[in-house]
């Protein structure tokens, strides 16, 4: 019997949505939520021994991840499953990072999410299989996941035919023909009409679909956000100037501009002299207030979100984006102006 430990988020654990997004890591014996259906699909050779869950707000971050992994290991898994996370960004990142951490300890693992989920590229060596786009597609998603679990438990390779998505590790192998001989053979294959043959698939680039335009800007709640590392002059929360691992929020309610001397940029990627001479150059609060007064936009959000975009890892940058989007949406913000340096 294969002992499976299942990682899910607070919503699928039945704790609630955004209001419970800060729930701490918790472990429960047996299957919970989608794990029950998964257990049925897996049959008698598998047992969902425990379910570990956590609130989406911090599950993918560096502070809480070790606690989640510890709870999973306490349940002595033969195999770990994370998701399905569908297109939910924070949940997907958490599943991916949990799976990556577990895979790094040589425990078999499968994560499951939609190919567009930003977590797909964060799973490290752990395999990811495709789920549907939304929770309505739970049934077929769990079927894909269950089939993948059986293969991983049997030590079989997971391929694209099994629904595998994301980065599959590429390993050096030695073959009979030299690279040059293979190149010439490929040239002849092309001349023979084969346009598909290649040893290196073209890389997948992120495609960001822009949100639909705001229907009526004169009624919209608009936020200012920046990667320009603009913080109160003493940098009270010690924002990093490079390779940031965190983002911060500061109130701008009641302010009409960002005065020199009260704010400064701690960005490590450019000379901050001009920014500090007039911090509105980084966060254009003066101009935004004017638009607000003219009625061109509805209202400005009461705080701005900030990090330092300098040498930031793609993984952290993705996490900041996902967290900012969730945070702004929760507060009813309809549009955001992101200033970049």
């Amino acid at each position: 019997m294969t002992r499976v430990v299942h990682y899910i988020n607070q919503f699928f654990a039945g704790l609630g949505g955004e209001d419970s997004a800060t729930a701490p890591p918790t472990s429960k014996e047996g299957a919970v939520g989608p794990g029950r259906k998964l257990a049925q699909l897996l049959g008698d050779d598998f047992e969902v021994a425990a379910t570990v869950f956590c609130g989406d707000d911090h599950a993918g971050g560096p502070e809480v991840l070790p606690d989640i992994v510890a709870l999973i290991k306490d349940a002595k898994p033969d195999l770990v499953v994370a998701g399905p996370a569908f297109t939910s960004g924070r949940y997907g990142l958490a599943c991916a990072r949990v799976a990556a951490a577990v895979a790094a300890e040589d425990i078999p693992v499968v994560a499951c999410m939609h190919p567009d989920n930003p977590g797909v590229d964060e799973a490290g060596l752990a395999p990811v299989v495709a789920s549907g786009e939304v929770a309505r597609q739970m049934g077929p998603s769990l079927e894909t996941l269950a089939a993948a679990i059986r293969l991983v438990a049997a030590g079989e390779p997971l391929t694209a035919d099994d629904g595998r998505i994301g980065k599959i590790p590429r390993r050096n192998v030695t073959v009979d023909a030299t690279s040059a001989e293979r190149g010439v053979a490929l040239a002849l294959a092309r001349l023979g009409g084969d346009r598909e043959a290649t040893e290196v698939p073209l890389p997948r680039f992120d495609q960001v679909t822009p949100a639909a335009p705001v229907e009526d800007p004169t009624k919209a709640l608009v936020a200012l956000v920046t990667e320009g590392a603009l913080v109160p002059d003493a940098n009270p929360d010690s924002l990093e100037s490079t390779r940031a691992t965190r983002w911060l929020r500061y109130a701008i309610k009641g302010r009409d501009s960002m005065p020199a001397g009260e704010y400064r940029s701690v960005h490590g990627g450019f000379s901050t002299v001009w920014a500090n001479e007039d911090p509105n150059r980084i966060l254009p609060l003066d101009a935004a207030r004017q638009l607000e007064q003219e009625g061109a936009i509805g209202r400005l959000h009461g705080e701005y979100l900030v990090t330092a975009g300098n040498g930031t890892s793609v993984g952290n940058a993705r996490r900041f984006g996902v967290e900012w989007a969730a945070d702004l949406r929760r507060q009813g913000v309809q549009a955001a102006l992101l200033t970049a340096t």
Partner: protein
Amino acid sequence: MTEPRLGDETGGTPGLTRLVHAVEAVAMGDRTGYEEGTLTVAAAEAAALVADPALAEVRVSWASPGDPTRIVKVLDAVEPRTKGPGGAGVFPGFVGPPKPQGRGETHVLRGASVVTAGYLPRAQEAVVDMSGPAAPLSPLGSTHNLVVEFSPAPGAQWEDVYEALRRGSLALAARLADAALDAEPDAVEELPGLPAAHDRRLPRVAAITNLQTQGSFKEVFVYGRSFPGAALPTLLDPGDLDDGAVVSGQLGHPSLKNPTWMFQNHPVLAALRARHGVDLLCAGVVLSPEPVDSHNKELVSAHAARLCKAAGFDAVVVTKEGGGNADADMALKMDALEELGIPTIGLFAEMAGPDGTAPSIVVPPTTATAMVSTGNYDERLDLPAVQVALGGDRVDVAGAGALDAMVLPTAVIYCSLSPLGWGRLTCREAA
């Protein structure tokens, strides 16, 4: 004596005859000579051929396949070749005058190599193991290598030290091959010249070989002159490369280097020649610079594509030298050729990170799609301890003594990801 060649019959240029002498054993002795597969070298004579005011001391020693030996800080490797006493035109621009070659007969000491090794400030450390898991990854792992070590003269400029080593190793390579001039060859290889422009019996397939052109320590010599970054692509007869018209002066990226030995044995040309007259015509080699700025990269790529179109090439295999910046030259050329309707294959090393999950190609092509992988640069290798080290006593990149067991990225093994396609590594998706 020899049968007429395909090129001769159909109006192409004459080709080259390689007289191959297999080197099966090596020795040091009083006289330099070649007899019955054994190459004997007089150490003092060899050192004297390399001697130069920029060098205080030159030492030579053998490292043979299977030896418990590691060669570190490898600079260049040259295959001994000659066209007659004194070289008779081999290595044009260095040993011989700068004249086109690739005609007549060339003696080749196959299985031997002259290897320079030692500290130069701009060189990235290259490692060759003569036994163990890294040996099959480098061409020098299966050749008898006459390793030339050196001490620079006090106050000598590093450029002069490198120049002395280059001239010296080419002269030494020609001298060693001279020893076999009177020996009966073990094999006679007839190589085609360039096919005539009207010869359309089979698809005309050519190589484009990008040369690194970044100045001292990062340059390539063609007929003895540093190939300029501002040059436009040019078509050469493959036999010219056999006779040493292209000589390396490039010390970056050990695994992605094209040493002189590799140009003499250009693997894409070898693969094309092997099928010449069977299912394709080996249509020649286009040499192209790798300029450092993107405007010139685009200019050179567009010109290379036009040249290939005008030369009637039906397909092209493109190669590079160097790291990520050189991927841009590859991608631009591949796209430019495909736009002119010429199917194009690129030979790329992958830079996929130690675990093989990072994006593989720094600048991938946009319309061209056919790529060969020569392996992942970043994958780690475990090398065992050895008993003899040549070229230096440290492998600084590993923070280890040269004799020690160490873990190295594939990127450090000399020619392991050969951009010219010598190697048998590729990448496959793991389970």
